């Protein structure tokens, strides 16, 4: 059985980040877009925690906490907006939101 080291965590982080990025680009549903963003943020958190542990320095883990806190508030605001939008337009499809067309 192979020991799980820093590289494994980083590879997991990259995989999650890629999934998140593809999700951000491909999803048309606003709710799923939020999920994808969360995946992105958490992939970064994994990297932070792993590197922090690797170096024995708590700064990275503290940073991860901050990211979680900010992500939570972002989702709270975002979901609030999403609900308002859904009440007004009856849909949360991204392609219908193009009022800022240049």
């Amino acid at each position, binding site marked *: 059985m192979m020991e799980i080291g820093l590289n494994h965590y980083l590879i997991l982080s990259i995989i999650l980040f890629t999934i998140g*990025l593809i999700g*951000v*680009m491909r*999803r*048309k549903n606003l709710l799923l*877009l939020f999920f994808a963003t969360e995946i992105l943020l958490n992939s970064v958190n994994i990297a932070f925690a792993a590197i922090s542990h690797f170096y024995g320095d708590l700064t990275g883990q503290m940073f991860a906490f901050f990211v979680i806190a900010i992500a939570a508030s972002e989702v709270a605001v975002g979901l609030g907006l999403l609900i308002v939008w859904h009440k007004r337009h009856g849909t949360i499809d*991204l*392609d219908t*939101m*193009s*009022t*800022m*067309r*240049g």
Partner: protein
Amino acid sequence: MELYLYLALFAPLAGSLFAALFGASPKIMIAGIIPSALLFASFVSSTILLVYILSGGAPVHVEMMTWMATGNLYIPFGFVVDQVSVTMMMVVTVVSTIVHIYSIGYMDHDKAFNRFFAWLSAFVFSMMVLVMSDNFAGLFIGWEGVGLCSWALIGFWYHKESATWAANEAFIMNRIADLGMLIGIFLVYWNTGTLQYEQAFAVMPALGTDILTLMGIFLFIGAMGKSAQFPLHTWLADAMEGPTPVSALIHAATMVTAGVYLVVRANPLFDLIPHVGLFIASLGAFVALFAASMALVNRDMKRIIAYSTLSQLGYMFVAAGLGAYWVALFHLMAHAFFKALLFLGAGNVMHAMHNELDPFKMGGLKKAMKWTFIMMTVASVALAGIYPLAGFFSKDLILEVAMIEHHYIIYSVLLFTAGLTAFYSFRLVALIFHGEERYKLFGVHPHEAYKFMLIAMAPLLILAVIAGSFKMTYFEMVTAVLPATEYHVHSAVAYWIMTIGTQLFVIAAIAFAYKKYVRSGITVPDGTSKMENRLCYKILSNQYYIPYIYEEYLVKPYRELSTIFWKQIDMKVVDATVDGIAGIIYGTGEKTRDMQSGNLSTMLKWMVAGTVGLLSLAVVFGLAVRYSVEIKAILSGLGV
């Protein structure tokens, strides 16, 4: 004394700004009266300063504030009132006060009355800066200021094509000369490290003759433009398009003498380079004769007087060039008085004759305009140099200087010119005031000018008569700063022969002018008489064809060259480049606006693409820095 200095300097500026407040509104009397009153204050302050200097006071030198101080360059706004500048201040303030008061009457019916006074006072302020500055930089500011005001006043009636043309001609000619002047000032700075007169002149004797000669020549080029010396003289006659008070103030008494003032002010420099001085004197003598000859046949009253001014400026340059600076300054002063008087008289005549300028269409005006007649006659007598009027003392002195310095050619040229001067001055007087009343044919009813205008002119009349008696006082005053050479012909007999000879010659010329032009049967020349078809008459009346030559051989080729540059270089290279850049940016915007679809999904894709792009750039540069040594080795191996 500093208070008076500032008052003398800034009162005209205050007057100008006050009149400018009403620049766009219809005529309002105070716009003329306040500037005149302020100028009078300036005149009084100048007089106080003159009395102070005359009673042996030390020159007043003030440094108002620092203007430029960087590195080794230090130029203050410094002003000095010494014997030379106080002379100029007196000339400027006396003549301009009189001209201001006169203009209240002269510009009475003009719509732009207020604007006129704003510019006229601004001119006086610039002139005061010019003469009072204690360094070349301040002199140059004043120099450009008077140029600007001169431009605005020549082109005062800008609805007239000829006036705007003449204004631009004067401005452009002066710019050409000012380039020379600027080079001269730069040379002074490079070689002496300062622009203050005193310090610069103190260093100059240690410099090489070559560099001093260059300085002298370039500074004199500036003087040539302002004082309209050949070959930059054509603008002065055309400048007569401006209102007559402007001609009296700017183009006779003050601005055109700035060149003489510059040479006098830079006398320590010109003393070191006598060969340049000789050139100046020769050019002056040539211009004196050249301009006087053109005045002989001209048929425009104001142009005749303008040529006369040109001729007298030539006299001043002869004196200055030969090192007789105080004589030059003395003639400058005397000339300012009688020439301004002559111009203002001409203004009265113009008003009476409804802007008619041809003296052949006048005649017999002495009945209708007694006082103008007296004033113009006195001014002409003074100009001709008859004892005991101002011109006798100053002009004969210049002749004596030429004689004593053994420049006999210059002497004879000047003597001959003195005869011509007398002739054309009295030709003018005879044609305007004597003989038959030819103006009746044209249905004009002449009238004398307003009384207050005549009263305003009276001080000039008195000065034109008595200015000569100040000679010795003046000599004692200015020679505190100028070389004190007294000019006396060695033997008394020679002196009397010279003086009486000159007087007789001049009187003969006057008599000839009267004989020729005070007879009945003079008609307005129509180009058919024998005289008018002579070659020499044609040459003279066409001003030696110099304006024609300038037009044909300088202006037209230049215009064609400019057209080529405009069409080939400006349009096809410069404009095309600028338009091309604008086009690219515009086109890029036009193409990339599709990105801005408003669709969040698309935008996120672009965001990801941008992040990836920036990250890869960072990686590439990071690697390049990391391996820079190896990359350089590879590149040098490839022979790059």
